[in-house]
């Protein structure tokens, strides 16, 4: 039997067995549901922010048109309603069907809001009010208000940006964070799965039969490929659903950013998984029972968690700061941080290439070392095997 056949047999078993489990199906469904909920929530929140309903009473009703126009120039949408009875109107503000109620006659306007009120709306209203007063006074002084308005419109400061702000920065940051979070989840979950698989074979002794027919490295590689493929499948399903939902709800400009992010995510998932899976497998081969697994996995999980938690904070604060730049180049952290920075669009090409080269080198070294530990320890049942012993032989 060829090595390729042996590896593919093992990989096929891992893939088929795992994909058929309830936990995989339910897990994927839950993640998709959470993602969908998030996207819907986002779009609702956006809509809510952009849309305010303002009740106008008495003389204030004449402000309806200028208010709507002014608001539009600020990027929000204001719907105005004429209000006749005050008691009822206050009640509407209270229950939220009106965002604000404006009463009184200019220039002595009053605005009633439920809580703190919308700042943009207040500013807009102030501007409208001032303009009204200005127009009135200009007219009194015998100057044509339209002329003044035109002159004003032509005056503005010429701005030269030294570091132009990316208009898509918000979206990029969101995508970067999502990519980092998905990779964090996949590495942790599927790495742990590899470890559990190794211990299952060890504790059930099936590994004895397997190793009478295939070599340790074939078994290990098959397992890593099989489970890696399951993780990749889940990642693709989640991402695709996420992208479709986002574009349907108009949260993210899919065509430009989403596709690239997906490619970056897949690339780094593969690098990260091959880097971590072997470490997980080697660590798991040291113990014989599932109960002992946690103790050997903790250092590995901690590395991934630190990469994620610290990395996310640094990335939001200063994605190009020296700490996050260095961390994103180092193989243990790169699979989570570099794709995040790449999605943000702040990683120069040379850094990306360097991180990939370092990751590949680390994979080669780790696979050799981890394979050795695995081969030496996987048949030794009973007490936990010391790492030094597993490396010696």
């Amino acid at each position, binding site marked *: *039997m060829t090595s390729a056949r*042996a590896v593919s*047999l*093992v990989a096929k*078993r891992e893939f088929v*067995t795992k994909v058929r489990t309830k936990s995989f199906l339910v897990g994927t469904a839950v993640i998709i549901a959470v993602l969908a909920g998030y996207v819907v929530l986002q779009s609702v929140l956006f809509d809510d922010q952009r849309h305010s309903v303002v009740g106008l009473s008495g003389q204030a009703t004449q402000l309806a048109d200028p208010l709507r126009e002014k608001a539009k120039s600020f990027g929000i949408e204001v719907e105005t309603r004429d209000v006749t009875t005050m008691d009822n109107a206050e009640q509407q503000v209270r229950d939220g069907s009106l965002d604000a109620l404006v009463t009184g006659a200019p220039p002595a306007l009053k605005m009633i809001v439920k809580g703190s009120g919308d700042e943009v709306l207040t500013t807009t209203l102030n501007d409208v009010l001032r303009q009204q007063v200005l127009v009135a006074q200009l007219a009194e002084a015998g100057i044509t208000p339209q002329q003044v308005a035109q002159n004003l419109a032509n005056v503005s400061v010429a701005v030269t940006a030294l570091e132009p702000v990316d208009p898509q920065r918000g979206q990029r940051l969101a995508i970067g964070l999502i990519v980092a979070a998905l990779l964090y989840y996949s590495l942790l979950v599927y790495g742990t799965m590899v470890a559990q698989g190794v211990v*299952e*074979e060890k504790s*059930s*002794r*099936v*590994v*004895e*039969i*397997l*190793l*009478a*027919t*295939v*070599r340790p490295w074939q078994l290990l590689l098959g397992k890593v490929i099989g489970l890696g493929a399951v993780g990749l499948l889940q990642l693709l399903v989640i991402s695709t659903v996420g992208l479709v939902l986002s574009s349907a709800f108009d949260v993210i400009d899919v065509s430009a950013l989403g596709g690239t992010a997906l490619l970056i995510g897949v690339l780094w998932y593969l690098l990260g998984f091959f880097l971590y899976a072997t470490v997980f497998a080697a660590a798991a081969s040291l113990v014989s029972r599932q109960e002992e697994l946690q103790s050997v996995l903790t250092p590995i999980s901690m590395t991934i968690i630190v990469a994620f938690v610290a990395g996310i904070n640094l990335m939001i604060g200063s994605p190009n700061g020296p700490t996050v730049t260095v961390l994103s180049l180092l193989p243990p952290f790169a699979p989570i941080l570099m794709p995040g920075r790449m999605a943000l669009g702040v990683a120069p090409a040379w850094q990306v290439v360097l991180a990939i080269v370092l990751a590949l080198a680390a994979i080669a070294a780790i696979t050799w070392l981890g394979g050795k530990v695995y081969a030496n320890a996987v*048949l030794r049942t009973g007490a936990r095997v010391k790492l030094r012993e597993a490396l010696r032989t």
Partner: protein
Amino acid sequence: MPEGVLEIDGISKRYGEVVALRDMSFDVRAGELFGFVGSNGAGKTTTMRIALGVLAADSGEVRWNGRAVDLDTRRRIGYLPEERGLYPRMKVLDQLVYLAELHGMSTNEAHKSVENWIARLGLRDRRTDEVQRLSLGNQQRVQLAAALVHEPDVLVLDEPFSGLDPVAVDVMSHVLREKASSGVPVVFSSHQLDLVERLCDRVGIVSAGSMVAVGTVDELRSGGESRLVVESPTTEWTATLDGVRVIEKNGTRCVLELAEGVDDQSVLHAALAVGPVHEFSRQRPSLTELFRNVVTTEARSA
């Protein structure tokens, strides 16, 4: 060229300071059922694991057909490990097909062979159950099926009879016998010595990591002391005979142990000389007694 012979040749293995095997040697011939007996920790499992290449020996060699066993020949061995060696959450059918494929069968061959063995071992109703849902006896049947599905050229079974009910023991014995008569060397370890005595063509007794006695049960009996059961009024006459010892006395019936070379006919004459003899027979030691003898002797000399 020793055709169809599995040779274990001078294998030694240490675990750190502990010597697990010391120059272990024996062979299992084509068509032979070989019983491998020994106390717990004597080195049976270690020997079998080394034969399967699951463990590496410090020195010595395992040969099949005169050639050192490598991964390709190893796939032709059927192995039943001491403890359960199956995926607990995998279905019987899927599991056996997977193992058959790993042993080099094509998917079609694997399915055909698995269905055949599932039927023969009475697992038809259980074929789509997860292994962990099966009774221990049925799990052992699946384990046996796992050792047999790829139609192996050699069978190495570690404690195949442990935990089996009498019916399952019969099924297992029948299958092993049949495999042996088809020309496959079969070696299995067991603590059920009466079963080994009844079933095996040859037996090897292991003690403290080396083979201390190999042969048919009759060969193991010959040589050394033999025992006689004599029923006669007195036993005083035995005192005059050299190399005869009374080891058990029960009324007029006694068990005598004869040193090597002592003629039983001279004992009979001596007995008849003093009175009537109502019973005179050779006591054939069971394998259990032989085993006890060998192991305690070894322990004393060690």
